[in-house]
Structure formats: structure tokens, C-alpha cells
């Protein structure tokens, strides 16, 4: 466990110096700060636009972070041969992969934390501008609504699943192929409903059954998206949060286990 934490710390340290992470976080913070200007374009909906834009920025920039970091974590160590140095020490291969993933997750958590703080600062400023307390309701939800954290939490779990997929793919394919496949998985993960209802447009029973089966095998990434619900003050129950997060954790393990197996058996010499 200690080894995993050490590797994770190293990954986080390296990521903090990574320009891609900086750029993504700066982009998200910039979007959050610019959101009030976009809000001025929409009569009566400025707070909604700030929330929508800030949460979308968290999601999009978090996606950049996990894809760009996730596909390169293992590949870079192998390419630069630093993995030889690491594995020559008393570090097992599974500890190496898990450490890399934990570092990726920690980087994502750090990036989302910075972006969330920026979002609340902007919302607090918006509330101050309106002359109302930050937690005061502005028809019908508070400006700096704590419920937004639910959306951020599920964004984290969603992107942690995508990061696990990226890491898994990077253990046996090139970074470019891993990036394309990860983005493909992200898109396909949002089409679960369409795959399940393919029988409405396709007659072939084989194809529809295959699509339906695929929809249940793929992680339903759309289910992690509660941004609109929290912005509109819709209830997102604790049960839903727990079940969705648990399903995300299951898929993370489902991607990490093959990653561990593949990397353990991989000939690195």
C-alpha cells in the first residue's frame, strides 16, 4: 500500500508540473470566470448559465486531464525505460499500475477541486452582485448551491472510469490508439439508451440483441451526468448517488483488473 501511495504521489507531482493539466485547469477557471459575461446574454438566466458553464468546464477539462495523462502514464514509463529502474526495486507490477492509477485519480481530484473552488467563487460574486446572500434562493435554487457538489462528485467518478479505461488501453496499445479508443468509449458510454432501443429502427433480432447486450456491458456514462438536475434544484437522492458511484467503482475495477493482468504478463525487455 505504501508503495502504491509513493508511486501515486510521484504521478501527482509530475502531473502538477505538466502543462496539459495547467492548461486544462486554467481553461476551466477562465470559463468559470467568463461565465457571468455569457450569463448577461441570457435574460433572467445568468446564474443558470454560470452553473451550466462551470460544471461543463469541470467535465470537459477533467476529460482532457484523464485522457492526456491516462494514455501516457504507462506508455511514457515504458518508452523512457524508467519502468526498468522502478521494477528493479522491490515494486510489484500490479503496485506500479495501481500507483499510476491512484496518481491519475488524485490529479483529477486536485483539478476538479481547483475548478470547483473557482465555480463557487464566481457564484459567490454573482450572489454579491445581486445583493443576496450566497445561499439565498434565486427562483428556485440557491446561487451558491451546495448540491452542485453532487454533480462534481459524479463527474469525478465518471472521469475516473474513463481514466481507468485509458490506463487499461495504454498497457497494450500505442498512446494514439489508446486516446482514440478512450474517446470512443466516452462517446459510446453516452449511447446506452439508443443501443437499448435499437429495435425501433433495426429489424434484425441479432443486431438488436447484440446492441442491447453491449449497452449493459458498457458503462452508462450518461447516468453520471446530473448537472442539469442540480442546476434546476431537482432532487438527486443519496441512493442514486451511492448506486451510481458504486457502479462506477465496479467499472473502474473492471478496467484495472485486465490492465494489471496485461501489464504483469507484458514483456518489457
Amino acid at each position, binding site marked *: 500500500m505504501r508503495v502504491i501511495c509513493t508511486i501515486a504521489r510521484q504521478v501527482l507531482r509530475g502531473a502538477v508540473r505538466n502543462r496539459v493539466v495547467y492548461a486544462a485547469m486554467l481553461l476551466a477557471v477562465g470559463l468559470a470566470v467568463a461565465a457571468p459575461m*455569457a450569463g448577461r446574454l441570457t435574460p433572467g438566466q445568468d446564474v443558470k448559465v454560470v452553473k451550466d458553464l462551470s460544471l461543463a468546464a469541470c467535465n470537459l477539462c477533467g476529460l482532457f486531464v484523464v485522457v492526456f495523462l491516462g494514455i501516457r502514464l504507462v506508455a511514457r514509463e515504458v518508452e523512457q525505460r524508467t519502468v526498468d529502474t522502478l521494477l528493479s526495486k522491490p515494486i510489484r507490477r500490479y503496485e506500479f499500475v495501481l500507483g499510476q492509477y491512484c496518481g491519475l485519480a488524485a490529479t483529477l481530484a486536485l483539478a476538479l477541486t481547483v475548478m470547483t473552488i473557482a465555480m463557487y467563487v464566481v457564484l459567490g460574486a454573482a450572489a454579491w452582485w445581486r445583493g443576496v446572500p450566497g445561499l439565498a434562493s434565486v427562483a428556485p435554487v440557491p446561487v451558491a448551491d451546495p448540491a452542485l457538489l453532487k454533480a462534481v462528485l459524479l463527474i469525478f467518478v465518471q472521469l475516473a472510469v474513463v481514466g481507468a479505461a485509458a490506463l487499461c488501453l495504454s498497457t497494450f496499445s500505442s498512446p494514439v490508439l489508446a486516446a482514440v479508443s478512450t474517446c470512443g468509449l466516452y462517446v459510446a458510454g453516452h449511447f446506452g439508451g439508443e443501443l437499448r432501443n435499437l429495435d425501433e429502427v433495426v429489424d434484425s433480432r441479432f443486431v438488436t440483441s447484440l446492441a442491447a447486450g453491449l449497452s449493459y456491458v458498457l458503462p452508462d456514462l450518461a447516468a453520471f451526468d446530473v448537472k442539469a438536475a442540480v442546476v434546476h434544484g431537482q432532487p438527486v437522492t443519496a441512493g442514486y448517488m451511492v448506486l451510481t458511484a458504486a457502479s462506477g467503482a465496479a467499472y473502474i475495477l473492471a478496467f484495472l483488473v485486465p490492465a494489471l493482468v496485461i501489464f504483469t504478463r507484458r514483456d518489457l525487455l
Partner: protein
Amino acid sequence: MSRLRGGASVFERGGAGSPLWGRTDAAVVATILLVTFGAALQVARDRETVDGPAPPGIRSVPPADLVQRAALSFEAVLADLYWIRAVQHYGRTRLSGGGAREYALLHPLLDVATTLDPRFDAAYRLGAVFLAEPPPGGAGRPDLAIALLQKGLASVPDRWQYLQDIGFIHYWWLRDRDDAARWFQRAADVPGAPWWLRFLAATTMTEGGDRAGARALWRLVRDAAGDSWMREEAARRLAQIEALDALDRYQRTVDRFRVRTGRAPRSWQDLLAAGDLSEVPVDPTGTAYELTPFGAVTVSPRSVLTPLPDSGALPARPAG
């Protein structure tokens, strides 16, 4: 090639005395100049656009279902984007004095915005205003405005404001008070709806001619009134309905007199003398009704029941 390599290294160092294109300060100055030049060109283009042909704006809107599928996890922010586009399209067309045809993309834009975010309150309510108002102030499509609000109702059935807005469109733009009253009544029936919606429904019903319905509603309001003002106002409205019934009754008496004698009665005295009435009629507040020289029975201007609900307050029916 060697010159290029040398230049690149100088560029990285950015030292003084290196070739001009390789110096950092020169690069910064060149960038600033290029940005300034680009900005100047954009300003020139915008000036040209004001005098020349209208800006292209939005030419087409993809189907809402397609946008929804392509939105992935970014539906809400895309809904905002389409809403902003709808507002800009409306504003641009309105400022240019465009006709109904120029507003053709307004409803598709609103449809995409509300499909992406089915609880987008402003897109439903303000969008309906944009759609219902006749050109050049709007698209002149109250039918689409009602359809948009009904789409909102399908997503948020307890949103009484959408029902009220539909009622308003029927009242103001379609001049259909009966339907308007029905929608106001539906809005009033939604749990949590404000009390004054019953006032609105009852008033509209009275104007539309459904006095029995209006009377029932005003009695409900009077009986459920929490304060004296509301109770007295409901009582006054009930008295107005009673006066409207009485006016119809006395008008028929006057019309019978006119048919029998070939002339309109000059005053109530003529009707008393002819035995058509036993006393000068008074409204529920005790103020005598007035009889005009042309034989029309009205409520006295001195009566607290004046003005009675009538159809004179509505705007002319919009063309198209």
C-alpha cells in the same frame, strides 16, 4: 539549413544582436502588430456589414434529437448556447424589422434548447413571448408559443406559470376569453398556485360570458378569502355579475317597449307609466341603473360597480 538551426537556437535564447526574426522582443512586437492588424480588419469588416448586406446570422438549425444525441454530457451548456442563439436571432430580426418569415428559425432554436434542457424555464416563457407577438415585434405564431409551453408542461406538470402563460396567449393574442379562462382555472388548480389566479380566471370568465362559472369561482374566492379586502373584492365582482344579469333583463324590457310603441323610452318614468316596471331599477349597491336616450340600459358611473367587465380592453386581433 544551418542558418535555420542557428536562428532557432537564437530564438530560444532570445539574445540581443541575433537576427531580427529570431529575437524574442521582435516576436512579441510582431505578434502585437499582427493582432492589432487583425482587430483593425475585423472593425473594418463590421463597418462594411452595417452599410452593406445584413450579416448571415443563423442559416439552419439541426434537428433537436440529433443535437441531443451528440451533446454527450454537455446538454445543459448546449441548451444555454441555443437559448443565447435564439435570443440573438430574435433581437437581430426584431431590430431589422423582419417579418414572420425572418423569424422562421426562432421556434427550431427554442425547440433544441428545450429538448436539451427540458426544465429551461426562460426558454419556455420568454420564448413563448417572442413567438406569440405579431411581426415585427415577434414571430406572430401564438400556436407555436402554446405548443412550446405545452412541451414545458409535459416536462414540469406542476409549473402553473406555463398554464397561466397559455391562458394569457389565448386572452391577449387569440382573443379567446373562454379558453383563456379555462387555462387560468387549470393554473389556479395546481397545488401551490397563487390565490389571484382564481381572480383572473373568474374575471376572464365573466368577460367571456360564462357568468355561471365566474359566479361559482368568485364565491369560492370569497369563501376562501384570508383578508377583508379580498372578500370585499370578490363580493363586488359577484355584484357585478348580478348587475350584468339585471342589465340583460331590463334591456329586454326596454326592447319590448320599443317594439310595442315604436320608440325608445325617454326615461324610467315611461316604463313605470306603461306598467312595464313597478319601480326604478337599482343595482346591487342601491344605485339606480341609467337609461340612455337611445334606449340602452347601463350601470351608473357613480356606482362602485363601474366599470363592468367588458370586451373593450382587448387589443385588436393581430393580423396573420
